[in-house]
């Protein structure tokens, strides 16, 4: 099956810092999503981004499908950005999302 690798596994930053989270995948995809899992376990949709670049406030994402990676950028981090960020992909011809192991982001005040 398709492999999804996220890096770094853990990231600790001070409030106001910028961060870049990476997601590498091993096959062609027709769906890629970024999620933020909050402390209550809810997966919050951040981006649906099988290709291209999108921005939403302080967050932006880029997927380069031909090179099989995606990046999530968080600027001017806030303590509420803390949590686990997951990348999930759906391989061409498949019908399910496969998740990476996540990046645990901790923003200290």
């Amino acid at each position, binding site marked *: 099956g398709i492999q999804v690798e996220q890096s770094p596994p853990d990231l600790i930053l001070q409030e106001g810092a910028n961060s870049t989270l990476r997601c590498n995948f091993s096959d062609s995809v027709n769906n890629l999503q970024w999620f933020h899992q909050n402390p209550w376990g*809810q*997966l919050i*949709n951040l981006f*649906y981004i099988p290709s291209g670049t999108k921005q939403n406030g302080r967050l932006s994402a880029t997927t380069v499908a031909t090179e099989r990676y995606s990046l999530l950028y968080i600027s001017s981090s806030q303590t509420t950005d803390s949590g686990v960020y*997951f990348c999930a992909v759906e391989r061409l011809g498949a*019908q*399910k*999302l496969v998740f990476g192991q996540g990046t645990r982001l901790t923003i200290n005040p």
Partner: protein
Amino acid sequence: GAGVSQTPSNKVTEKGKYVELRCDPISGHTALYWYRQSLGQGPEFLIYFQGTGAADDSGLPNDRFFAVRPEGSVSTLKIQRTERGDSAVYLCASSSRRDRREAFFGQGTRLTVV
């Protein structure tokens, strides 16, 4: 509804008992998925429904696990003879699977087998 709804939020059961977990997808979404998330891990796929039929059940760990979606909307995940290793958060997601394949997740059911 406005989002994917799962009940109960928490379920504690004794080893060997039978449990049912319910998922109410976003209205109009034809695709429904069940995932399982263990502590410190990413969600793992269990089963996918397109309409009423299970199109892919390759993630079900064994025959103690079964899921139904009889009318193409609400789904129930059923676990027989529960084991302590079944303890996890069970997540449900739905998608319209038309031009946009974005999946939306419920808040999950935390199952604890004691």
